[in-house]
């Protein structure tokens, strides 16, 4: 409770969280409040915003508001799923290697560093290009999660190493706890705030990766995503036609989500690390 009070007391956390909740709420409530339909043509291509279609239509004559809401939903879904996978994989590897040390740690660190250097977008491009049929949103999110975990493994490992020789861990070992018990109950609780921050950043990474893939034309076949809206707008000359409503709202949405996540992350850093406070 006290933590929550401190958190809300920091203006930037409240701002970031508010912004993020706003996007989350519009993604969740949008379909309930508005009529969302992404398959019916409601008019000509690139109709300008009007009272019946607040943000006009896209190159096929689909309603932009509907597209944006479902795009937002997909992007957030990818963020959550990819963020969860990446954080779980990264944290497990980092915690286990950091606590165990020795050969296992060496092997884990070596492989983490290997994949840290090889750009994850390259791996993503190769993988996505090979899956031509059945590249669903969920699959893309899973693939992103499995390729972006590296830096969080490294960061969590560094933290786990510093906890390895604490007295309470030694005590737990004497009491006969196994490796998993110690890692789970005696090391991880100390790092929860840190892991939460990692999750926030991994979510932002996931959303950005999906958008980048979609921009390259490797987006999901089964859903609209914000990146796909941008890709369609770019390939169908929305920029040169001056149809700003076909891409600007999607740009604003992606930037808002990522920006709010970054703000949350840095404000958490300020709360958890007193040195950064003034």
């Amino acid at each position, binding site marked *: 409770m006290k933590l929550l009070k401190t958190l809300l007391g920091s203006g930037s956390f409240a701002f970031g969280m508010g912004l993020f909740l706003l996007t989350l709420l519009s993604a969740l409530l949008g379909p309930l409040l508005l009529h969302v339909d992404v398959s019916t043509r409601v008019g000509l291509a690139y109709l300008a915003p009007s009272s019946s279609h607040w943000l006009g239509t896209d190159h096929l004559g689909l309603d932009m508001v509907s597209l944006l809401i479902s795009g937002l939903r997909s992007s957030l879904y990818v963020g959550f799923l990819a963020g969860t996978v990446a954080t779980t994989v990264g944290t497990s590897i980092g915690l286990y290697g950091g606590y165990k040390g020795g050969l296992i740690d060496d092997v884990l660190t070596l492989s983490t*560093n*290997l994949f*840290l*250097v*090889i*750009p*994850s*977008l*390259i*791996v993503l*491009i*190769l*993988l996505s*290009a*090979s*899956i*031509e*049929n*059945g590249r669903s949103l969920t699959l893309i999110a899973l693939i992103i999660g499995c390729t972006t975990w590296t*830096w969080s493994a490294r960061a969590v490992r560094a933290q786990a190493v510093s906890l390895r020789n604490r007295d309470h861990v030694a005590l737990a070992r004497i009491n006969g706890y196994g490796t998993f018990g110690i890692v789970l109950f005696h090391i991880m609780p100390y790092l929860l705030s840190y892991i939460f921050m990692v999750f926030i950043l991994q979510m*932002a990474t996931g959303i*950005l990766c999906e*958008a*980048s893939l979609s*921009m*390259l*034309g*490797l987006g999901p076949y089964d859903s609209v995503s914000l990146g796909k809206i*941008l890709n369609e707008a*770019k390939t169908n000359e929305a*920029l*040169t036609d*001056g149809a*700003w409503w076909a*891409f*600007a709202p999607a*740009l604003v949405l*992606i*930037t808002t989500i*990522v*920006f709010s*996540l*970054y*703000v949350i992350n*840095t404000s958490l*850093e300020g709360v958890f690390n007193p*040195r*950064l406070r*003034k």
Partner: protein
Amino acid sequence: MLSNHPTLEHIFRRAGWYFVTFLVAITINFFLPRLGDANPVDTILAKVSAGLDSASAKAKEEAYLKEFNLVELDATGNVKRDARGKPVRTSLGRQFINYLGMSVRLDLGSSILQHPKRVSEIIKTALPWTLALQLPTIVFGWLLGNLLGALAAYKRGVFDRVLYPLALLASAIPAFCFGMLLVYVLGIRLEWFPAVGGYDDGLTPEVSWAFFQSASYYYVLPFLSVFLIVVGGQAIGMRSMCIYELGSDYVKYAKLLGIKERQILFYMFRNAMLPQLTGLALALGTMTSGALITEMIFSYPGLGMAVLTAIQGSDYPLITGCTLLVTICVLIANFSVDVLIGFLDPRIRAAQLGK
């Protein structure tokens, strides 16, 4: 002998490590595209024989099969065929070994879309554009960002309050979003700068004043779109690094001694710089991928554009060629930063000597 040269030992050690990474990258490059249902081998065959009469289709098919060593050859070098006339496939292992050999010789095969053209030929024309766009942008952006970050941490107050949210926003805007915005506002609406392409249509790439002029005019927007983001990201990292250093004992001690502010600032900058240097190495990977998308938005004639056209046409030799090259570039950049750290960081020397 090496033990007397700790820096040299560090460099050799890193070189070995990067070589292993390179091998892994090559392996990934070979196996990942073959994981999915759209097997590149089948795609290549389908592509090659599409829209050609049977005789020339067969000739082209055989050329590809031989080039990538996808089939068994008989003693005379002809493609072995089974009873139904289908070519006999080589095992995946043999394909891989052949691929390794080709990669080491930097022979990336030939493109499918632009058929007789070699992939290495296409990459050779695209690479200078990518390097010209990315290297100066990342290096200058990194320098300016670090300078601003250090200043913000040291001065705090209004300067920090204005710079910090701006930097946060700049680093949060995805490169492609910012790029699209620049194309639309500065390129198409205001018509200040050319929106897409790398040079005027009438020109051909050559060393001439006219071409240079045109190219630098087209350079402005893609440069800006990457530069500001790099500056923002680096400023944030340096700021928190410097705040940490400011609270450390040596800064307090220096202040007590009454050492000049500029001198303290210099000490602090030097100490905070090292982690930033490692950060640069790590960020290079993400930056390169970000810049690939930027190139695509500006239709800049670099690797990003090559990757995009390759993906759109399922041109597997070109895709894997480009991804391999980008990986190699990132590895080289990382290695250079590592070497630099070996020279700059006294702790590495000390640690190696201490052993």
